[in-house]
């Protein structure tokens, strides 16, 4: 037997040592919100609902249905598409409760590999953005897809969206290709298309009969508004697309450990939907049998109880506002210091991550000389910024940019 050892690289997100404090190292996978004290935050509404659940004697403790808790699936899809969504009213929307966003991507990918584009077609190209979340590739490859391609996305010179390249790559994509789109708060660049740009993207995709597979991990967490962060998904549905949307409630509920996800399926009609869901049942059954109850219950109770729903929206806005504040302050400080270059992208970008535009040499300087840790790509996790360290970070970036070219 031949084994090959691959040790996953441990990469650091933005963190800081000051006054000989301990380093906390985050792996590339632990993109998690932090408070201004750099602590994890259990949402107050989550604590409340947890208590409700644990004290509820009437709850049954059996296995969940294979496709998940019905009230969760329903309310999660509503969150993505909007309460008034015509697609929901026309009964052509279904949800599959999954193990987080990853699980939803997995189930969607497994389904597409078996039944999309002529059945069991592993040759259908799957397009992911350059760059993208590092796990996208793995999920589709492991589902059996043999042709993973990229579409241009980030333009380093302009520190923004490579729209021209993006649209060109879509034009050249074979018909029926699967396109993985970040619904909002693109990971890792933080750069989202504007509404106008989304319209152009949708236009090409419609003409080329490309299949949109949205990854929605930050709804509400990005702008503070559920509606705003779901605009792209809802636009595509309004344009008559059939879509998959892999939703994660890890960030916007702070429920990283209970793996709450939902795969929203929008089909042209109820009959097609029913057939898709019947096949997804088997995929779920042979992967994890039935999904976990705790997180789904928490989310479902919150979303379907008006006062709790309002409280949750407030908690989400708190997180989003803090990140937006850090972005604004970082940009202001860099501009105040007269740091060479433009820094508008810091506030134009959105969500947890930001592509600063710093080059690998500057990144190395920051890590080695200033103990400010970020990815070699120049990506920082905005949640690592606090009111206590923002001056130091801004000054360090200033030094890096002025000393190293």
């Amino acid at each position, binding site marked *: *037997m*031949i*084994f090959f*050892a*691959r*040790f*996953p690289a441990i990469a650091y997100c933005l963190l800081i040592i000051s006054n000989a404090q301990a380093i906390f190292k985050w792996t590339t*996978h*632990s993109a*998690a919100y932090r408070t201004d004290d750099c602590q*994890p935050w*259990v949402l107050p509404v*989550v604590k409340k609902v*947890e*208590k409700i659940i*644990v004290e509820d004697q009437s709850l*049954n*403790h*059996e*296995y*969940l249905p*294979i496709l998940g808790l019905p009230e969760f699936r329903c309310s999660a899809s509503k969150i993505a598409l909007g309460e008034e969504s015509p697609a929901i009213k026309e009964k052509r929307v279904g949800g599959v409760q999954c*193990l*987080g966003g*990853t699980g939803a991507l*997995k189930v969607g990918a*497994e389904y597409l590999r078996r*039944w*999309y584009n*002529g059945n069991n077609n592993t040759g259908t190209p799957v397009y992911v953005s350059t760059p993208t979340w590092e*796990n996208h590739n*793995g999920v589709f490859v*492991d589902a059996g897809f043999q042709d993973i391609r990229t579409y241009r996305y980030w333009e380093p010179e302009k520190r923004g969206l490579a729209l021209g390249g993006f649209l060109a790559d879509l034009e050249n994509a074979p018909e029926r290709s699967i396109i993985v789109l970040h619904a909002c708060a693109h990971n890792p660049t933080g750069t989202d298309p504007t509404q106008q740009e989304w319209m152009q993207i949708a236009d090409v995709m419609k003409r080329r009969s490309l*299949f949109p597979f949205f990854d929605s991990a930050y709804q509400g967490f990005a702008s503070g508004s559920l509606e705003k962060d779901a605009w792209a998904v809802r636009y595509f549905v309004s344009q008559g697309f059939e879509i998959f949307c892999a939703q994660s409630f*890890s960030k916007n509920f*702070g429920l*990283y*450990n*209970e*793996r709450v996800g939902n795969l929203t399926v929008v*089909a*042209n*009609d109820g009959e*097609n*939907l*029913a*057939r898709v869901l*019947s*096949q997804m*049942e*088997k995929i779920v*059954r*042979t*992967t*994890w*049998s039935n*999904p*976990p*109850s*705790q997180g789904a219950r928490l989310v479902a109770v919150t979303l379907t109880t008006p006062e709790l729903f309002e409280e949750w929206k407030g908690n989400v806005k708190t997180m989003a506002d803090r990140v937006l504040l850090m972005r604004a302050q970082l940009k202001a400080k860099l501009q105040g210091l007269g740091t060479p270059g433009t820094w508008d992208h810091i506030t134009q970008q959105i969500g947890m991550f930001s592509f600063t535009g710093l080059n690998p040499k500057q990144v190395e300087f920051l890590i080695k000389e200033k103990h400010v840790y970020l990815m070699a790509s120049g990506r920082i996790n905005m949640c690592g910024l606090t009111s206590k360290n923002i001056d130091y970070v801004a000054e360090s970036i200033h030094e890096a940019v002025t000393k190293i070219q």
Partner: protein
Amino acid sequence: MTTHSAFIDTPTLPLNPETKLLAAFKNDTHPDKVYLAGREYLGEDGQISVLPLTWKIKQQIGSDPTLGTEYPPGLGLPEFTRRVTDLALGKDSQAIVENRVLGVQTVGFMGAVRLGTELLRRWYNRSVAWSGPVYVALPCHDSLVDTLKAAGILDVRQYRYWNAEQRVVSMDKLTEDLEQAPEHSVVMLSASAHCPTGADLSQQDWSALAEVMASRKLLPFFLLPAQGLCLGDPDQDAWPLRHYASLGLEFLCAQSFSHSFSLYGERVGHLLLVLKQNSVLLAVQSQADSLVRSLWARPTVLGARVVATVLGNPAYLAEWRDAIRGLAERCLLIREQLLEKLRLLGTPGRWDHLTQQGGLYCCTGLNAEQVRFLARKRHLYLLPDGCVNVTAINRQNLEYVAESIYLALTSAL
């Protein structure tokens, strides 16, 4: 007429037989109906029995402000994997001492089977692209074969297991089938309380089988879904694993804690790998890590916390062992009572096996026609192959169930 759709080529998958059966039961309005095909451990009241200890620990966890909601490691909570590894193999297991054991928390039992199979497909017997054979018992849990196939195993075979006439394990046929298995085949073996027949190998059988496994270079993949619920003692139920480990054999094991902790919805599973050499442990671990990332990224925490808390605290552990014994004893009691009723009625056929087995599942030996009769005329719903979950039988319905079985075997159908 359906409109054109990206999903137009998708055929409707017929309802899973279990789902169909449950739906038929739910639609049945007869007052005496009994569902004997469920997966959960039911109490005397016909409801899922939740261990008071589990309830207590959940409340404790719920009110503990130090417990956050952070991502767990991809391979699971270390305190969980360590303790359930000890539970399976015994704390002093040579394999543990020599650091040749990998434990991975999974999403339930099927998650462990899926992950284990994916791991095997990628690194087992690497001289060729490996996609089987994997052997499963005839009969076995209905999702097992589907899961193996979903993990990419093309060659799934069955070995004869249940002797319908004698109502025991068909040891000679089992041995015969495995002696003819190609070298390096993987063999799924129920460690205790076989689902769905309830028939288990004796210690002698296990020892004899170990020789066959060794000589044919077959890799055991144990299934241990309800440790402690068969013989009332977790150590006894895990005997086959411990014995094989002591013989220096390499094997996998899928574990579940659904039944033994009443943690069904929490999806607490574990994949155990006992390797021959410690030198490959890190490599296997890195492969498992990579695979988990494409399956579910990370497991859920609540159930694992409950199990780890119980197993890690001597007082709770003692309480749990007591509770488990109680659950197993109730299974035995029901079996005894059913046997007695069947005998009193003069029911034809062999029934000794009822009390010679342990655990939730038992095969009545009824054939397909008799099973259909029970559903239609007596409103009793059995698993395929005439197997039942004995915990669904209680004081209220015992007479009715026994009588129904008697009628199925004696009426002109």
